[in-house]
């Protein structure tokens, strides 16, 4: 009891001192370690999340995603909607109003012309902009007056929140980047390393792939923020070393992306200097079932293509049995601990899109056996099932990664119990995810029967993600093996519903359609076998206050609110 009172007193004290010191630059320095070091401060020239996160302390978009996946205005005064007239009724344009009185860190005013310039900067055909996909389908971006911006689309857009929403597409200062458009963009070292922004910090020093030094932006719109006078982003090491620097040695206040085994983290946390927390976005560890035949006897250009259905996995009973035999809770406990949740969904969030599909969460070995028996797969002399001369032997591949190899071993044992023989293969991650059309071992080529990896989508609109599972997105020789429909799932009904969704505006209706599409891929067909809904974990010191993890946007999205507690 006394301890509790004392603790409450301490908490009050901390809160009061925190409040009393709500002033800019009084909390000294905050040290952030990112084990992949930032190599630029311009997110338009890099797809690396390390660079996007670093830049987000300086550059701001019109709106950001908050931790539950919803939108919040940043440089915009409000989020446009059909109700407030921001989104045109024909869905072909969106009008943003800027917050009045905004100034850049060099003291000049922020105008809609800066935003329009940024759009032109990225859409310049000679530029090779890394975020071009976010500007996909934009017809023109024009500044109507200094505070009003209109983005027009070539076709109706039910969800227009792509460009200038989220840390990937912040607003650049026209005056600074005027000479850096097109082919000149990568050469503007000074501009790309020290962009002038509107965010809580400004760059004072940039050492590529080593460290970024920042100080509080004197022109930041909230006069009491940020609480820290300086921010240091240091790169180097690996996930374990970064977590150790925060949790065991206390040299750093915050470590990005500390994906480690649960008991490793628990051991580090035992020091009491800090903790690891996970933010849940849309990342799901899943198994793709190959519905096409990967047999090496086929000609190279026909392996794993729609021409040849899979001799074993075309049988829905086999796919269902494989899914039923997996104990997802155990996988989660072993691989991710608190940074994971068992799931049956491809789209686990946002809430309006997450299906209530939970039937797969209980492992059912007996049920899986019965299913295979019923489908005519009978155990042979060595316990492995056979049917029509096909032995239930499957090649299961994934990337080289300690957790994934543990998962492979566990799943192999469960499948052994239902009479399925599994051959395991692990591929070097740089090859597996490399996307090289000449390599036989990429996840797109899928020269295996099953493969496991994690996938997610950016922003909080799952529609493009679901659209990637359409029949026209199957990887094959005609598109240099670049599709994302890895399972080679082809269902006219799915494609029809997708087309219908792209014409639907009502969020509730869109969510319902999304859930239906998700269920078609997972529960109904077992073309995709989801395993674990994964969080992205970060470690932070107990003395660092104000941290709110956010998996939908940059981890530094609220760095202005960070402060020192104690």
């Amino acid at each position, binding site marked *: 009891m006394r301890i509790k009172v004392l603790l409450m007193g301490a908490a009050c004290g901390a809160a009061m001192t925190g409040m009393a010191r709500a002033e800019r630059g009084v909390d000294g320095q905050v040290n952030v370690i990112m084990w992949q070091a930032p190599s630029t401060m311009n997110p338009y020239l890099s797809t690396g999340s390390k660079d996007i996160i670093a830049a987000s302390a300086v550059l701001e978009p019109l709106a950001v995603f908050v931790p539950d996946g919803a939108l919040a205005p940043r440089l915009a005064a409000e989020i446009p909607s059909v109700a407030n007239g921001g989104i045109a009724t024909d869905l072909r344009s969106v009008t943003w109003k800027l917050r009045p009185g905004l100034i850049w860190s060099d003291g000049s005013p922020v105008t809609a012309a800066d935003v329009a310039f940024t759009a032109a900067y990225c859409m310049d055909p000679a530029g090779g902009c890394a975020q071009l996909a976010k500007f996909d389908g934009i017809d023109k971006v024009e500044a109507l007056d200094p505070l009003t911006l209109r983005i027009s689309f070539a076709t109706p857009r039910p969800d227009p929140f792509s460009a200038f929403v989220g840390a990937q597409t912040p607003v650049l200062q026209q005056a600074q980047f005027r000479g850096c458009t097109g082919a000149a963009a990568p050469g503007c070292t000074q501009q790309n390393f020290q962009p002038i922004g509107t965010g809580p910090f400004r760059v004072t020093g940039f050492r590529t792939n080593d460290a970024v030094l920042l100080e509080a932006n004197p022109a930041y719109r909230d006069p009491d923020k940020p609480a820290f006078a300086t921010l240091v982003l240091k790169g180097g090491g690996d996930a374990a070393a970064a977590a150790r620097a925060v949790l065991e040695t206390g040299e750093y206040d915050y470590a990005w992306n500390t994906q480690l085994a649960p008991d*490793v983290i628990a051991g580090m946390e035992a020091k009491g200097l800090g903790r690891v927390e996970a933010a849940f976005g849309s990342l799901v560890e899943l198994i793709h079932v190959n519905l096409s035949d990967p047999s*090496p006897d086929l000609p190279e250009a026909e392996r794993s293509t729609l021409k040849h259905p899979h001799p074993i996995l075309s049988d829905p009973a086999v796919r269902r049995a494989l899914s039923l035999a997996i104990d997802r809770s155990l996988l989660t406990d072993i691989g991710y601990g608190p940074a994971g949740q068992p799931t049956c969904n491809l789209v686990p969030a946002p809430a309006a899109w997450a299906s209530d599909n939970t039937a797969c969460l209980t492992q059912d070995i007996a049920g899986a056996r019965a299913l295979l028996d019923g489908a005519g797969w009978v155990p042979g002399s060595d316990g492995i099932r056979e049917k029509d001369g096909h032995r239930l032997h499957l090649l299961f591949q994934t990337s080289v990664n300690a957790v994934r190899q*543990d998962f492979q071993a566990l799943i192999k044992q469960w499948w052994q119990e239902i009479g399925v023989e599994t051959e395991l293969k692990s591929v070097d991650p740089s090859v597996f995810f490399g996307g090289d059309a000449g390599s036989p071992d990429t996840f797109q080529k899928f020269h295996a029967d099953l493969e496991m990896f994690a996938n997610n989508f950016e922003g909080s609109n799952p529609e493009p993600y679901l659209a990637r599972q359409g029949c026209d997105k199957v990887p094959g020789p005609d598109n240099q093996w670049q599709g994302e429909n890895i399972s080679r799932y082809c269902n006219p009904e799915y494609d029809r519903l997708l087309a219908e969704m792209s014409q639907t505006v009502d969020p509730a209706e869109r969510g319902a359609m999304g859930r239906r599409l998700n269920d078609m891929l997972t529960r109904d067909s077992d073309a995709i076998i989801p395993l674990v809904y994964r969080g992205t974990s970060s470690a932070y010191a107990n003395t660092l206050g104000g941290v709110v993890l956010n998996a939908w946007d940059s981890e530094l999205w609220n760095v202005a609110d960070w402060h020192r507690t104690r």
Partner: protein
Amino acid sequence: MAERASLWQRLRPQRGAMIGLWVLALLVVFVLLGPWLWRIAPTHIDIRARNQGLSWAHPLGTDQLGRDMMARLMAGGRISLAVAMAVMPITLGLGGLVGLLAGYFRRLDGVLMRLTELFLALPLLPLLLLMVTLFREPLARHLGPPGGSFVLIVLAIGLTSWMAVARILRGEVLALKERGFIEAARAIGTRPGAMLWRHVLPNVASPVVVAATLGMATAITTESALSFLGLGFPPDYPTLGRLLHDAMDQMQQYPLRALLPGLMIAVTVLAVNAVGEGLREALDPRSGSR
């Protein structure tokens, strides 16, 4: 027979070599006979018994999935030793051939030694990785996944580790060529083939034996390095390098899991080296006075 006996007699007094032999014999017994006595399968997962320390049920503990460490070490050691044994004839054959020819025939010397240098200069690991990527699938198709990997790794290591043998042999042959009995044999018209077989080969046998044992040690470490990188054998095949790889993440909590396979690699390599060193001493006529 008499010669062999004398080799044994020369080897006996060398403590290092005898210790190495004993350790090697114990290791062979452990990995070959062990599985007959210790019947737990190395890949059997008992998830309730994960991360256990030393106990009667699991004398060397269990790993992060509850697989028995002793059974895994036996299986891993067996693969490592098998790879080493299989690599040896390849390095001996290739290296011996190149070394003999280069040393004996002056015309071939330049070409073959440049070839040897070329192979020495090749970055070994990237080359091995490339071979694994290119040939794993066709070999696995014809010989089954473990068999295919075994052949692939043995060939890959063998084809990239014969250079030392070739260089040693060439030097020996060059020196031997000037000796009186060779000149005498040549004078009576012995053909090159017979010359190599009858007169040269028996006289360079001792450095070859030594090079072979040392090559075995290299093969063990190379195989472990490949497995450690997650390549080589399929992931469910416990090899010593794979065991090390699996133990890496939790090295601080469970140091024993990394120490045991690491120690086994080190002990095997040291024992093989000690035997090789002893053989060199025993076979060297100049050290006969010891």
